Protein backbone atom coordinates (compact mmCIF):
# COMPACT_ATOMS: atom_id res chain seq x y z
CA UNK A 1 0.00 0.00 0.00
CA UNK A 2 2.84 2.34 0.92
CA UNK A 3 6.33 1.75 -0.38
CA UNK A 4 9.43 3.85 0.23
CA UNK A 5 12.53 3.16 -1.87
CA UNK A 6 15.66 4.86 -0.55
CA UNK A 7 13.70 8.00 0.21
CA UNK A 8 15.63 11.09 1.27
CA UNK A 9 13.99 14.39 2.11
CA UNK A 10 16.04 17.56 2.53
CA UNK A 11 14.05 20.72 3.32
CA UNK A 12 16.73 23.39 3.03
CA UNK A 13 19.83 23.05 0.92
CA UNK A 14 22.76 21.97 3.07
CA UNK A 15 20.61 21.08 6.06
CA UNK A 16 20.57 17.63 7.66
CA UNK A 17 18.07 15.42 5.82
CA UNK A 18 14.71 15.04 7.59
CA UNK A 19 14.57 11.53 6.14
CA UNK A 20 17.71 9.71 5.09
CA UNK A 21 17.53 6.78 2.65
CA UNK A 22 14.47 5.17 4.16
CA UNK A 23 13.13 2.00 2.53
CA UNK A 24 10.05 0.21 3.75
CA UNK A 25 6.82 -1.49 2.73
CA UNK A 26 3.43 -1.23 4.40
CA UNK A 27 0.97 -3.87 3.22
CA UNK A 28 -2.73 -3.40 2.69
CA UNK A 29 -4.63 -3.68 5.98
CA UNK A 30 -1.57 -3.34 8.21
CA UNK A 31 -1.43 -1.31 11.43
CA UNK A 32 1.93 0.40 11.82
CA UNK A 33 3.29 2.55 14.63
CA UNK A 34 5.86 5.14 13.66
CA UNK A 35 7.92 6.01 16.71
CA UNK A 36 10.92 8.18 17.44
CA UNK A 37 11.90 11.41 19.18
CA UNK A 38 10.65 14.79 17.95
CA UNK A 39 12.46 15.70 14.76
CA UNK A 40 13.18 12.09 13.89
CA UNK A 41 11.20 12.39 10.63
CA UNK A 42 7.79 10.92 11.53
CA UNK A 43 5.83 13.91 10.30
CA UNK A 44 7.94 14.16 7.17
CA UNK A 45 7.11 10.53 6.46
CA UNK A 46 3.38 11.27 6.70
CA UNK A 47 3.69 14.44 4.61
CA UNK A 48 5.46 12.50 1.88
CA UNK A 49 2.65 9.93 1.79
CA UNK A 50 0.10 12.75 1.51
CA UNK A 51 2.23 14.31 -1.23
CA UNK A 52 2.38 17.55 0.75
CA UNK A 53 6.09 17.25 0.13
CA UNK A 54 8.06 15.59 -2.64
CA UNK A 55 10.99 13.32 -1.92
CA UNK A 56 14.39 14.88 -2.65
CA UNK A 57 15.71 11.46 -3.71
CA UNK A 58 14.31 7.96 -3.95
CA UNK A 59 10.75 6.93 -4.80
CA UNK A 60 7.50 6.95 -2.85
CA UNK A 61 4.64 4.68 -3.96
CA UNK A 62 1.14 5.01 -2.54
CA UNK A 63 -1.62 2.67 -3.75
CA UNK A 64 0.59 1.67 -6.66
CA UNK A 65 1.27 5.20 -7.88
CA UNK A 66 4.68 6.81 -7.83
CA UNK A 67 4.18 10.20 -6.22
CA UNK A 68 7.31 11.77 -7.68
CA UNK A 69 5.88 11.53 -11.20
CA UNK A 70 2.25 12.13 -10.22
CA UNK A 71 1.05 15.35 -11.84
CA UNK A 72 -0.28 17.88 -9.38
CA UNK A 73 -3.83 17.84 -10.73
CA UNK A 74 -4.04 14.17 -9.78
CA UNK A 75 -3.00 14.85 -6.18
CA UNK A 76 -6.58 15.56 -4.97
CA UNK A 77 -7.68 12.16 -6.29
CA UNK A 78 -4.83 10.53 -4.39
CA UNK A 79 -5.83 12.29 -1.19
CA UNK A 80 -9.41 11.07 -1.46
CA UNK A 81 -8.02 7.63 -0.72
CA UNK A 82 -6.07 8.80 2.31
CA UNK A 83 -7.58 9.96 5.60
CA UNK A 84 -5.53 12.10 7.98
CA UNK A 85 -5.92 12.76 11.71
CA UNK A 86 -3.82 15.21 13.71
CA UNK A 87 -2.93 15.95 17.31
CA UNK A 88 -4.76 19.30 17.16
CA UNK A 89 -7.97 17.83 15.61
CA UNK A 90 -8.29 20.63 12.99
CA UNK A 91 -12.05 20.94 13.22
CA UNK A 92 -13.99 23.94 11.93
CA UNK A 93 -15.18 25.76 15.07
CA UNK A 94 -18.26 27.37 13.52
CA UNK A 95 -19.64 24.15 12.07
CA UNK A 96 -21.51 21.44 13.95
CA UNK A 97 -20.22 17.90 14.32
CA UNK A 98 -22.41 16.80 11.42
CA UNK A 99 -21.30 19.72 9.23
CA UNK A 100 -17.64 19.10 10.03
CA UNK A 101 -17.88 15.52 8.81
CA UNK A 102 -20.16 16.40 5.89
CA UNK A 103 -17.67 19.10 4.80
CA UNK A 104 -15.20 16.43 3.72
CA UNK A 105 -17.79 14.97 1.35
CA UNK A 106 -19.24 18.28 0.16
CA UNK A 107 -15.91 19.62 -1.02
CA UNK A 108 -15.27 16.57 -3.18
CA UNK A 109 -18.71 16.94 -4.73
CA UNK A 110 -20.57 14.01 -3.23
CA UNK A 111 -24.34 14.12 -3.78
CA UNK A 112 -26.61 15.23 -0.96
CA UNK A 113 -28.37 11.91 -0.41
CA UNK A 114 -25.01 10.16 -0.12
CA UNK A 115 -23.92 12.65 2.56
CA UNK A 116 -27.20 12.32 4.46
CA UNK A 117 -26.80 8.56 4.78
CA UNK A 118 -23.03 8.21 5.15
CA UNK A 119 -22.36 10.88 7.77
CA UNK A 120 -24.77 9.53 10.45
CA UNK A 121 -23.43 6.00 9.88
CA UNK A 122 -19.87 7.18 10.38
CA UNK A 123 -20.77 9.26 13.44
CA UNK A 124 -22.43 6.24 14.97
CA UNK A 125 -19.40 4.11 14.22
CA UNK A 126 -17.06 6.52 16.06
CA UNK A 127 -19.48 6.72 18.97
CA UNK A 128 -20.89 10.18 18.50
CA UNK A 129 -24.51 9.31 17.72
CA UNK A 130 -26.77 11.96 19.23
CA UNK A 131 -24.11 14.67 19.21
CA UNK A 132 -24.53 15.71 15.58
CA UNK A 133 -25.64 19.23 16.42
CA UNK A 134 -22.91 20.05 18.92
CA UNK A 135 -20.11 22.38 18.04
CA UNK A 136 -16.46 21.38 18.62
CA UNK A 137 -16.03 23.60 21.71
CA UNK A 138 -18.95 21.80 23.37
CA UNK A 139 -17.13 18.47 23.12
CA UNK A 140 -14.36 16.87 25.16
CA UNK A 141 -10.94 16.39 23.58
CA UNK A 142 -11.61 12.73 22.98
CA UNK A 143 -14.92 13.49 21.32
CA UNK A 144 -13.30 16.14 19.14
CA UNK A 145 -10.73 13.62 18.01
CA UNK A 146 -13.55 11.21 17.20
CA UNK A 147 -15.09 13.88 14.99
CA UNK A 148 -11.75 14.30 13.26
CA UNK A 149 -11.48 10.54 12.78
CA UNK A 150 -15.04 10.44 11.43
CA UNK A 151 -14.14 13.16 8.95
CA UNK A 152 -11.00 11.30 7.87
CA UNK A 153 -12.87 8.01 7.52
CA UNK A 154 -16.22 9.15 6.10
CA UNK A 155 -15.04 8.70 2.51
CA UNK A 156 -13.79 5.17 3.36
CA UNK A 157 -10.12 5.76 2.52
CA UNK A 158 -7.69 2.91 1.93
CA UNK A 159 -5.11 4.50 4.21
CA UNK A 160 -5.54 6.36 7.49
CA UNK A 161 -2.60 8.49 8.60
CA UNK A 162 -2.55 9.59 12.24
CA UNK A 163 -0.04 12.15 13.50
CA UNK A 164 0.03 11.75 17.28
CA UNK A 165 -3.74 11.44 17.56
CA UNK A 166 -3.58 10.86 21.32
CA UNK A 167 -0.96 13.53 21.99
CA UNK A 168 -3.47 15.88 23.65
CA UNK A 169 -5.55 13.25 25.42
CA UNK A 170 -5.46 11.52 28.80
CA UNK A 171 -4.63 7.77 28.94
CA UNK A 172 -8.24 6.54 29.30
CA UNK A 173 -9.47 8.68 26.45
CA UNK A 174 -6.46 7.66 24.39
CA UNK A 175 -7.37 4.03 24.89
CA UNK A 176 -10.85 4.71 23.51
CA UNK A 177 -9.33 6.37 20.45
CA UNK A 178 -7.00 3.40 19.96
CA UNK A 179 -9.94 0.97 20.09
CA UNK A 180 -11.62 3.05 17.43
CA UNK A 181 -8.52 3.05 15.22
CA UNK A 182 -8.23 -0.69 15.71
CA UNK A 183 -11.85 -1.12 14.57
CA UNK A 184 -11.18 0.97 11.51
CA UNK A 185 -8.09 -1.13 10.80
CA UNK A 186 -10.22 -4.29 10.98
CA UNK A 187 -12.41 -2.98 8.14
CA UNK A 188 -9.33 -3.38 5.94
CA UNK A 189 -8.01 0.16 6.19
CA UNK A 190 -4.25 0.51 6.44
CA UNK A 191 -3.40 2.61 9.51
CA UNK A 192 -0.08 4.40 9.99
CA UNK A 193 0.19 6.16 13.33
CA UNK A 194 3.04 8.37 14.46
CA UNK A 195 3.17 8.50 18.24
CA UNK A 196 5.17 9.20 21.40
CA UNK A 197 2.78 7.19 23.56
CA UNK A 198 4.80 4.18 24.78
CA UNK A 199 1.91 2.65 26.78
CA UNK A 200 -0.30 2.47 23.75
CA UNK A 201 2.40 0.99 21.54
CA UNK A 202 3.27 -1.59 24.17
CA UNK A 203 -0.37 -2.59 24.65
CA UNK A 204 -1.31 -2.87 20.99
CA UNK A 205 1.58 -5.07 19.93
CA UNK A 206 1.54 -4.02 16.31
CA UNK A 207 4.33 -3.48 13.84
CA UNK A 208 6.69 -0.72 15.03
CA UNK A 209 8.98 1.33 12.82
CA UNK A 210 11.44 3.53 14.68
CA UNK A 211 13.08 6.56 13.15
CA UNK A 212 16.05 8.38 14.57
CA UNK A 213 17.35 11.63 13.07
CA UNK A 214 15.85 10.68 9.74
CA UNK A 215 17.07 7.11 9.53
CA UNK A 216 15.08 3.96 10.10
CA UNK A 217 16.70 2.16 13.03
CA UNK A 218 14.10 -0.54 13.70
CA UNK A 219 11.28 -2.37 11.93
CA UNK A 220 9.71 -4.91 14.24
CA UNK A 221 6.45 -6.79 13.90
CA UNK A 222 4.41 -7.01 17.14
CA UNK A 223 6.93 -4.58 18.65
CA UNK A 224 7.05 -2.33 21.65
CA UNK A 225 7.91 1.37 22.03
CA UNK A 226 11.45 1.22 23.41
CA UNK A 227 13.99 -0.87 21.50
CA UNK A 228 15.83 -1.74 24.71
CA UNK A 229 12.98 -3.85 26.07
Amino acid sequence: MIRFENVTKVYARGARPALDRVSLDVERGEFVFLVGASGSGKSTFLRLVLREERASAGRVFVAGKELGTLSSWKVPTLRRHIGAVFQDFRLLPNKTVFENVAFALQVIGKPRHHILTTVPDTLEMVGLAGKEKRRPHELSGGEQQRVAIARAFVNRPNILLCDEPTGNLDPTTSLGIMRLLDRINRTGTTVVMATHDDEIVDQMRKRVIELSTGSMVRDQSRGVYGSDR
Partner: protein
Amino acid sequence: MRLQFILSEIGLGLRRNLSMTISVILVTFVSLTFVGAAALLQTQIGKMKDDWYDKVEVSVFLCPQNSTAPTCASGEVTDDQKADIQAALASPEVKPFVEKVYTETKEQAYDAFQKQFKDQFWASAATVDDMNSSYRIKLTDPEKYSVVSEVISGRAGVEEVKDQQRLFDRLFSVLNNATLLAGGLALVMLLAAVLLITTTIRLSALSRKRETGIMRLVGASTVFIQLPFMLEGAIAATIGALLAVGGLWVGVTYLVDDWLGESAGWIPYVSTSDVLTIAPVLIGVAILLAAISSLVTLSRYTKV
Protein backbone atom coordinates in the same frame (compact mmCIF):
# COMPACT_ATOMS: atom_id res chain seq x y z
CA MET B 1 -24.76 20.15 -3.81
CA ARG B 2 -21.63 21.52 -5.40
CA LEU B 3 -23.11 24.75 -6.66
CA GLN B 4 -25.04 25.37 -3.47
CA PHE B 5 -21.90 24.79 -1.45
CA ILE B 6 -19.78 27.13 -3.57
CA LEU B 7 -22.46 29.82 -3.39
CA SER B 8 -22.66 29.61 0.38
CA GLU B 9 -18.86 29.80 0.59
CA ILE B 10 -18.89 32.93 -1.56
CA GLY B 11 -21.59 34.54 0.57
CA LEU B 12 -19.59 33.73 3.67
CA GLY B 13 -16.41 35.23 2.24
CA LEU B 14 -18.10 38.40 1.02
CA ARG B 15 -19.76 38.98 4.39
CA ARG B 16 -16.66 38.18 6.40
CA ASN B 17 -14.64 40.80 4.52
CA LEU B 18 -17.47 43.25 4.09
CA SER B 19 -15.41 46.44 4.36
CA MET B 20 -12.83 45.10 1.90
CA THR B 21 -15.57 43.98 -0.46
CA ILE B 22 -17.10 47.45 -0.37
CA SER B 23 -13.74 49.09 -1.04
CA VAL B 24 -13.18 46.78 -4.03
CA ILE B 25 -16.62 47.75 -5.33
CA LEU B 26 -15.89 51.46 -4.89
CA VAL B 27 -12.44 51.39 -6.45
CA THR B 28 -13.61 49.45 -9.49
CA PHE B 29 -16.60 51.79 -9.68
CA VAL B 30 -14.40 54.90 -9.80
CA SER B 31 -11.75 53.43 -12.08
CA LEU B 32 -14.27 52.07 -14.57
CA THR B 33 -16.15 55.37 -14.53
CA PHE B 34 -12.95 57.00 -15.77
CA VAL B 35 -12.47 54.27 -18.36
CA GLY B 36 -16.05 54.79 -19.48
CA ALA B 37 -15.68 58.57 -19.54
CA ALA B 38 -12.62 58.24 -21.76
CA ALA B 39 -14.52 55.92 -24.08
CA LEU B 40 -17.50 58.30 -24.22
CA LEU B 41 -15.23 61.25 -25.02
CA GLN B 42 -13.78 59.34 -27.95
CA THR B 43 -17.28 58.39 -29.07
CA GLN B 44 -18.21 62.08 -28.86
CA ILE B 45 -15.25 63.07 -31.01
CA GLY B 46 -16.14 60.38 -33.52
CA LYS B 47 -19.71 61.59 -33.71
CA MET B 48 -18.66 65.20 -34.23
CA LYS B 49 -16.22 64.22 -36.93
CA ASP B 50 -18.83 62.15 -38.71
CA ASP B 51 -21.34 64.91 -38.51
CA TRP B 52 -19.13 67.90 -39.30
CA TYR B 53 -16.37 66.73 -41.58
CA ASP B 54 -18.97 66.34 -44.37
CA LYS B 55 -19.98 69.93 -43.90
CA VAL B 56 -16.69 71.70 -43.31
CA GLU B 57 -15.27 73.58 -46.19
CA VAL B 58 -12.44 75.95 -46.96
CA SER B 59 -13.62 79.50 -47.49
CA VAL B 60 -11.66 81.76 -49.81
CA PHE B 61 -12.77 85.29 -49.01
CA LEU B 62 -12.21 87.68 -51.91
CA CYS B 63 -11.32 91.32 -51.44
CA PRO B 64 -14.22 93.68 -50.66
CA GLN B 65 -14.13 97.37 -51.47
CA ASN B 66 -12.29 98.73 -48.46
CA SER B 67 -9.89 96.09 -47.27
CA THR B 68 -6.62 96.73 -45.46
CA ALA B 69 -5.11 93.36 -46.46
CA PRO B 70 -1.93 93.81 -48.58
CA THR B 71 -3.28 91.49 -51.29
CA CYS B 72 -6.28 93.80 -51.66
CA ALA B 73 -4.27 96.95 -52.40
CA SER B 74 -5.90 97.25 -55.83
CA GLY B 75 -9.39 97.50 -54.29
CA GLU B 76 -12.30 95.15 -54.88
CA VAL B 77 -11.51 91.88 -56.57
CA THR B 78 -11.54 92.03 -60.38
CA ASP B 79 -12.77 89.47 -62.88
CA ASP B 80 -9.18 88.81 -63.98
CA GLN B 81 -8.15 88.04 -60.45
CA LYS B 82 -11.16 85.72 -60.10
CA ALA B 83 -10.21 83.90 -63.26
CA ASP B 84 -6.67 83.56 -61.95
CA ILE B 85 -7.90 82.03 -58.68
CA GLN B 86 -10.21 79.63 -60.49
CA ALA B 87 -7.38 78.58 -62.76
CA ALA B 88 -5.27 77.90 -59.68
CA LEU B 89 -8.02 75.76 -58.19
CA ALA B 90 -8.23 73.78 -61.43
CA SER B 91 -4.46 73.26 -61.60
CA PRO B 92 -3.21 69.67 -61.42
CA GLU B 93 -1.59 70.12 -57.93
CA VAL B 94 -4.85 71.20 -56.33
CA LYS B 95 -7.58 69.66 -58.44
CA PRO B 96 -7.45 66.11 -56.98
CA PHE B 97 -8.21 67.46 -53.48
CA VAL B 98 -11.09 69.66 -54.53
CA GLU B 99 -14.47 68.03 -54.65
CA LYS B 100 -16.59 71.04 -55.50
CA VAL B 101 -16.38 74.83 -55.58
CA TYR B 102 -19.37 77.00 -54.72
CA THR B 103 -19.37 80.70 -55.48
CA GLU B 104 -21.01 83.08 -53.06
CA THR B 105 -21.55 86.63 -54.30
CA LYS B 106 -21.50 89.53 -51.89
CA GLU B 107 -25.26 89.88 -52.32
CA GLN B 108 -25.78 86.27 -51.26
CA ALA B 109 -23.42 86.82 -48.36
CA TYR B 110 -25.41 89.93 -47.37
CA ASP B 111 -28.70 88.00 -47.43
CA ALA B 112 -27.27 85.20 -45.34
CA PHE B 113 -25.80 87.72 -42.93
CA GLN B 114 -29.08 89.56 -42.53
CA LYS B 115 -30.90 86.31 -42.01
CA GLN B 116 -28.50 85.04 -39.37
CA PHE B 117 -28.30 88.26 -37.34
CA LYS B 118 -31.63 89.86 -38.16
CA ASP B 119 -32.26 91.11 -34.63
CA GLN B 120 -28.80 92.56 -34.04
CA PHE B 121 -28.04 96.27 -34.46
CA TRP B 122 -24.95 95.71 -36.57
CA ALA B 123 -26.96 93.90 -39.23
CA SER B 124 -28.82 97.05 -40.17
CA ALA B 125 -25.57 99.00 -40.33
CA ALA B 126 -23.93 96.60 -42.80
CA THR B 127 -24.16 97.18 -46.49
CA VAL B 128 -23.75 94.86 -49.44
CA ASP B 129 -20.33 96.36 -50.14
CA ASP B 130 -19.07 95.42 -46.68
CA MET B 131 -19.54 91.77 -47.55
CA ASN B 132 -16.95 89.49 -49.13
CA SER B 133 -17.77 87.48 -52.12
CA SER B 134 -16.17 84.08 -51.64
CA TYR B 135 -15.41 80.65 -52.96
CA ARG B 136 -16.51 77.80 -50.73
CA ILE B 137 -14.38 74.79 -51.49
CA LYS B 138 -15.38 71.32 -50.49
CA LEU B 139 -12.34 69.07 -50.14
CA THR B 140 -12.21 65.39 -51.00
CA ASP B 141 -10.14 64.90 -47.84
CA PRO B 142 -10.61 67.53 -45.13
CA GLU B 143 -7.10 66.81 -43.81
CA LYS B 144 -5.53 68.19 -47.03
CA TYR B 145 -6.43 71.75 -46.20
CA SER B 146 -2.87 73.05 -46.29
CA VAL B 147 -2.34 72.09 -49.93
CA VAL B 148 -5.21 74.29 -51.05
CA SER B 149 -4.35 77.04 -48.62
CA GLU B 150 -0.74 77.30 -49.84
CA VAL B 151 -1.72 77.71 -53.46
CA ILE B 152 -4.54 80.19 -52.96
CA SER B 153 -3.56 82.45 -50.09
CA GLY B 154 -1.39 85.45 -50.92
CA ARG B 155 -2.78 85.77 -54.44
CA ALA B 156 -3.99 89.16 -55.53
CA GLY B 157 -7.70 89.53 -54.83
CA VAL B 158 -7.75 87.02 -51.98
CA GLU B 159 -8.29 88.62 -48.59
CA GLU B 160 -8.20 85.51 -46.46
CA VAL B 161 -8.36 81.71 -46.64
CA LYS B 162 -10.18 80.18 -43.72
CA ASP B 163 -10.48 76.53 -42.85
CA GLN B 164 -13.42 75.67 -40.65
CA GLN B 165 -11.77 72.41 -39.79
CA ARG B 166 -9.07 74.26 -37.90
CA LEU B 167 -11.67 75.42 -35.43
CA PHE B 168 -12.95 71.91 -34.94
CA ASP B 169 -9.46 70.54 -34.63
CA ARG B 170 -8.84 72.83 -31.69
CA LEU B 171 -12.01 71.54 -30.03
CA PHE B 172 -11.05 67.97 -30.82
CA SER B 173 -7.61 68.44 -29.33
CA VAL B 174 -9.24 69.69 -26.13
CA LEU B 175 -11.46 66.61 -26.07
CA ASN B 176 -8.50 64.36 -26.89
CA ASN B 177 -6.56 65.82 -23.98
CA ALA B 178 -9.55 65.24 -21.74
CA THR B 179 -9.57 61.63 -22.95
CA LEU B 180 -5.89 61.28 -22.11
CA LEU B 181 -6.50 62.73 -18.65
CA ALA B 182 -9.44 60.42 -17.98
CA GLY B 183 -7.45 57.49 -19.39
CA GLY B 184 -4.45 58.30 -17.21
CA LEU B 185 -6.57 58.55 -14.08
CA ALA B 186 -8.32 55.33 -15.10
CA LEU B 187 -4.96 53.59 -15.37
CA VAL B 188 -3.91 54.67 -11.88
CA MET B 189 -7.26 53.66 -10.45
CA LEU B 190 -7.15 50.32 -12.27
CA LEU B 191 -3.78 49.62 -10.73
CA ALA B 192 -5.22 50.49 -7.32
CA ALA B 193 -8.14 48.18 -8.05
CA VAL B 194 -5.88 45.26 -8.94
CA LEU B 195 -3.83 45.75 -5.78
CA LEU B 196 -6.93 46.05 -3.65
CA ILE B 197 -8.59 42.98 -5.13
CA THR B 198 -5.32 41.10 -4.65
CA THR B 199 -5.23 42.11 -0.99
CA THR B 200 -8.87 41.24 -0.49
CA ILE B 201 -8.48 37.79 -1.99
CA ARG B 202 -5.36 37.24 0.10
CA LEU B 203 -7.14 38.26 3.30
CA SER B 204 -10.09 36.11 2.40
CA ALA B 205 -7.81 33.15 1.72
CA LEU B 206 -5.90 33.67 4.96
CA SER B 207 -9.07 33.98 7.03
CA ARG B 208 -10.23 30.68 5.58
CA LYS B 209 -6.90 28.93 5.81
CA ARG B 210 -8.35 26.29 8.13
CA GLU B 211 -11.12 25.45 5.68
CA THR B 212 -8.85 25.38 2.65
CA GLY B 213 -6.33 23.29 4.58
CA ILE B 214 -8.96 20.66 5.30
CA MET B 215 -10.23 20.86 1.74
CA ARG B 216 -6.76 20.09 0.43
CA LEU B 217 -6.38 17.29 2.92
CA VAL B 218 -9.58 15.49 1.97
CA GLY B 219 -8.81 15.84 -1.73
CA ALA B 220 -10.91 18.75 -2.96
CA SER B 221 -9.73 19.80 -6.41
CA THR B 222 -7.73 22.98 -6.82
CA VAL B 223 -10.47 24.57 -8.90
CA PHE B 224 -13.02 23.79 -6.22
CA ILE B 225 -10.85 25.37 -3.53
CA GLN B 226 -10.01 28.46 -5.55
CA LEU B 227 -13.32 29.09 -7.29
CA PRO B 228 -15.08 30.77 -4.33
CA PHE B 229 -12.22 33.25 -3.96
CA MET B 230 -12.11 34.00 -7.67
CA LEU B 231 -15.86 34.48 -7.83
CA GLU B 232 -15.76 36.72 -4.77
CA GLY B 233 -13.34 39.06 -6.50
CA ALA B 234 -15.25 38.83 -9.76
CA ILE B 235 -18.60 39.54 -8.12
CA ALA B 236 -17.30 42.58 -6.25
CA ALA B 237 -15.61 43.91 -9.41
CA THR B 238 -18.73 43.31 -11.49
CA ILE B 239 -20.87 45.21 -9.00
CA GLY B 240 -18.34 48.05 -9.29
CA ALA B 241 -18.63 47.90 -13.09
CA LEU B 242 -22.43 47.98 -12.93
CA LEU B 243 -22.25 51.03 -10.65
CA ALA B 244 -19.89 52.68 -13.15
CA VAL B 245 -22.34 51.98 -15.99
CA GLY B 246 -25.14 53.39 -13.84
CA GLY B 247 -23.06 56.46 -12.99
CA LEU B 248 -22.24 57.12 -16.64
CA TRP B 249 -25.86 56.62 -17.60
CA VAL B 250 -26.99 59.17 -15.03
CA GLY B 251 -24.20 61.52 -16.11
CA VAL B 252 -25.14 61.31 -19.78
CA THR B 253 -28.85 61.67 -19.04
CA TYR B 254 -28.60 64.71 -16.81
CA LEU B 255 -25.41 66.43 -17.97
CA VAL B 256 -25.38 65.75 -21.69
CA ASP B 257 -29.01 65.16 -22.67
CA ASP B 258 -30.70 67.60 -20.35
CA TRP B 259 -28.12 70.32 -19.83
CA LEU B 260 -25.81 70.42 -22.87
CA GLY B 261 -28.62 69.33 -25.17
CA GLU B 262 -30.69 72.28 -23.99
CA SER B 263 -27.98 74.92 -24.13
CA ALA B 264 -26.16 73.83 -27.31
CA GLY B 265 -28.48 71.49 -29.11
CA TRP B 266 -26.92 71.76 -32.56
CA ILE B 267 -24.08 69.40 -31.60
CA PRO B 268 -24.61 65.65 -31.94
CA TYR B 269 -24.04 64.31 -28.43
CA VAL B 270 -23.35 60.88 -26.99
CA SER B 271 -26.51 59.23 -25.75
CA THR B 272 -27.43 56.64 -23.16
CA SER B 273 -27.35 54.00 -25.89
CA ASP B 274 -23.62 54.72 -26.22
CA VAL B 275 -23.30 54.03 -22.49
CA LEU B 276 -25.02 50.70 -23.00
CA THR B 277 -22.63 49.94 -25.87
CA ILE B 278 -19.57 50.37 -23.66
CA ALA B 279 -21.20 48.61 -20.66
CA PRO B 280 -20.11 45.09 -21.70
CA VAL B 281 -16.56 46.38 -22.19
CA LEU B 282 -16.51 47.84 -18.68
CA ILE B 283 -17.87 44.63 -17.17
CA GLY B 284 -15.31 42.70 -19.19
CA VAL B 285 -12.52 44.90 -17.84
CA ALA B 286 -13.81 44.33 -14.28
CA ILE B 287 -13.79 40.56 -14.72
CA LEU B 288 -10.34 40.73 -16.29
CA LEU B 289 -9.07 42.73 -13.30
CA ALA B 290 -10.46 40.16 -10.90
CA ALA B 291 -9.02 37.31 -12.95
CA ILE B 292 -5.54 38.85 -13.02
CA SER B 293 -5.67 39.47 -9.28
CA SER B 294 -6.85 35.93 -8.59
CA LEU B 295 -4.11 34.39 -10.70
CA VAL B 296 -1.46 36.46 -8.95
CA THR B 297 -2.75 35.67 -5.46
CA LEU B 298 -4.29 32.24 -5.37
CA SER B 299 -1.42 30.23 -6.73
CA ARG B 300 0.52 31.40 -3.68
CA TYR B 301 -2.09 31.18 -0.95
CA THR B 302 -4.04 28.05 -1.73
CA LYS B 303 -1.28 25.81 -3.01
CA VAL B 304 -2.03 22.13 -3.44
